[in-house]
């Protein structure tokens, strides 16, 4: 038993740090560190930088052009890049649809899609949820009807997806569609890859609590999709969907990002004043900071334990649900603590280029500027990726056997 990194791992850590510091665009890093909203290009520039280095397929096997890194290496990479302020690698292509295509897609799909995911040429979004199918995902109702066609069979897709994160940037969407209404609901679902440029697709923004555009409704009106874009077998989509969800849950814990926020909170607590003294001298605030920092360490070790078990070729088990719950709770605790530290600075709604935001100079240099917006925004983390209640149901049934 040893909780420290080996000397080999330390060498790796240094290598990642050096590369990141030398190649990360400082403008993007500043945005990340101060918490302002990133543009599509900010994400893509970093993605391409990593691609050139051969580091973008973090969890991918080498056969598909991935890094082949083990779990600890992946964790080190996540931690070091997050700490430097690197934009998050958007998971929908790299971490979600790619493993599905690797495991269940055909050769043509692998050859076509995987390189474009790696290069960043195609931005993916996730079309699972519908207005009537949230927690109860198996009730998806977006229909795909198979039509025979001399030029090759195709599906005609009709219906609506919703909560599609960053769908406004996406080139492709992977969808759970209903191809049969017979038998168990889970048995009539298929997994389709759809080009967002196909005629009949409409993307409508949904504005979130922080008044930003992050999610969308995606509407399908007689959208023609070639059967070549069906992954695996028709009506077997539920199996692939579940496979993907378990991957989503380990990735969602966000330990690296949390560590960065903790670090920032340390600075904030030293700089901000309460009753004329540094906020860190306020015992209530200090206790809260200490508490969440300790919980984060517990989460990190748990994550490493789960990843280590995965290394032995075991699928992420229902324990992944624990990471999702605890990770989201810690992310929320951290954004809340930042808002609490802000005090009255949490009140104004300021946004770049609006309401003379640049003039609110006592806010502009502070970590507080986006404090409330982040707090509001992060309420999502206990809802998406399977709500924390649903995760608890999974643990109840599959781990505890209750």
């Amino acid at each position, binding site marked *: 038993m040893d909780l420290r990194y080996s000397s080999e791992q330390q060498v790796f850590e240094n290598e990642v740090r050096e590369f990141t510091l030398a190649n990360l665009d400082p403008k993007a890093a500043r945005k990340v560190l101060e918490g302002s909203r990133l543009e599509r290009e900010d994400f893509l520039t970093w993605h391409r930088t990593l691609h050139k280095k051969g580091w973008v397929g973090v969890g991918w096997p080498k056969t598909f052009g991935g890094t082949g890194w083990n779990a600890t290496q992946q964790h080190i990479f996540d931690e070091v890049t997050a700490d430097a302020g690197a934009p998050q690698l958007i998971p929908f292509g790299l971490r979600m649809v790619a493993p599905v295509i690797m495991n269940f897609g055909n050769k043509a799909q692998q050859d076509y899609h995987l390189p474009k995911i790696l290069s960043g040429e195609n931005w993916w979004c996730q079309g699972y*949820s519908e207005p009537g199918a*949230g*927690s*109860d995902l198996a*009730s998806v109702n977006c229909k795909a009807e198979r039509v025979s066609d001399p030029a090759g069979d195709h599906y005609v897709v009709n219906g609506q997806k*919703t*909560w599609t994160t960053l769908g406004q940037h996406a080139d492709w969407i992977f969808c759970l569609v209903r191809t049969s209404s017979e038998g168990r609901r889970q048995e009539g679902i298929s997994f389709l890859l759809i080009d967002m440029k196909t005629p009949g697709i409409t993307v409508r923004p*949904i*504005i*979130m*609590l922080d*008044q930003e555009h992050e*999610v969308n409704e995606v509407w399908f009106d007689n959208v023609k999709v070639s059967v070549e874009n069906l992954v695996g077998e028709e009506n077997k989509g539920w199996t692939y969907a579940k496979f993907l969800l378990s991957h989503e849950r380990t990735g969602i814990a966000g330990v690296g990002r949390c560590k960065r926020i903790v670090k920032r909170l340390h600075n904030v607590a030293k700089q*901000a*004043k*309460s*009753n*004329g003294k540094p*906020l860190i001298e*306020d015992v*209530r*605030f200090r206790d809260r900071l200490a508490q969440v920092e300790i919980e984060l360490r517990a989460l990190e070790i748990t994550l490493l334990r789960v990843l280590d078990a995965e290394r032995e070729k075991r699928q992420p088990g229902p324990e992944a649900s624990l990471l999702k719950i605890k990770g989201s709770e810690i992310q929320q605790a951290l954004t809340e603590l930042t*808002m*609490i530290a*802000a*005090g*009255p*600075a*949490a*009140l*104004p*709604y*300021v946004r770049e280029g609006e*309401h*003379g*935001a640049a*003039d*609110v100079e*006592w806010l502009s240099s502070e970590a507080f500027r986006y404090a*409330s*917006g982040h*707090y*509001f*925004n992060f*309420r*999502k983390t*206990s*809802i*998406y990726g399977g*709500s*924390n*209640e649903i995760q*608890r*149901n999974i643990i109840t049934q599959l781990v505890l056997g209750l």
Partner: protein
Amino acid sequence: MDFSLTEEQIALKDSLGKFIARDYTFDDRWKVIRSSEGWSRAHWNQLAEIGLMALPVAEADGGLGGGGIDTMVVMEQIGRGLLLEPYLGCAVLPAALIKAAGTEAQRATLSEGLASGETLYAFAHTEPGQRYERAAVAMSAQVSGAGFVLSGKKITVLGGDCADQLLVSAMVSGDTGASLFLVDAKAAGVTRLAYPMQDAQRGADIDFSGVNLGADALIGTRGGAQAAIDYALDVACAALCAESVGVMDELLKQTVEYLKTRKQFGRAIGTNQALQHRAVDMMMHVEMSRSMALEAAVAVDNPDAAARAKAISGAKTIIGQGCRFVGQNAVQLHGGIGVTHELAASHYFKRLTMINVTFGDSDWHLARYGDMLLAAA
């Protein structure tokens, strides 16, 4: 013990309730949010007609002489309807300040416009780099001839975007206690940066650079404003407590309704015991908060400042925690729709969040309460 409202209070509550039902639907409110002022003069005048602006002004000064419970009744309704008109910032808070700090003559002159709703006042107190300090006033007032020159900056002034007259706390050089000055918002040297708050209410940062004031701008006695400031902020806290009960109660109602109507897995989500119990916990927070809002409302009329302060901080501790729990869980139980800007419940959540961080969050008030225990030990 008597928990009943007077007939006048019931009438007040009913007329406000009717006003909200008729003129302040969620759609009406959107129009107000999107207007350039961010609140409605027409609504303000309607509220003045019901007597709301005169309510917190003493009878001797031409008002209705309402007490803590009267303000509570009003604020609870304001919370229920999520009103954007700056009643707290431009009526309740300045009325308390003028009442506690002004000389008899000042009270009479200032109260007229206040009670009619024609003049909007705002209290400019918090400064950059401060959190909730009440006595740490850095803004300077230099003696100059018979008058003063005011320099410094105030931030997050509630109603500071629209106030005609500003009540500004400042320290006259050499003094050990704060003074209060009346400053015309249009005076030379006053610049304000107005902005919406996170919950769509409005506020402003206000710069005072060498603002010349006459001797008569001093409200009450020089260096002697702190007790009045403490009183007024306690009154404001009690009002926020009452408002939050209206907000929480309404938000709980909306959430329970959603639990009954939203179906997943072929049944209402409210049939899941995990969610039922969460709703119960929310309800318990609402009821504890309601009790403490009462405590706070009664306490503002208590002449014993220490007893008042303790009750207010006790109340705002419990209520800050209630705001947090009820708000967060309302969003959670709504699922994805709960994090959208278009849902009414989201706006209630944001208001609750901002109430907690206005004039001291639950941690700050817990500390203030604890300090009083320590001082008495």
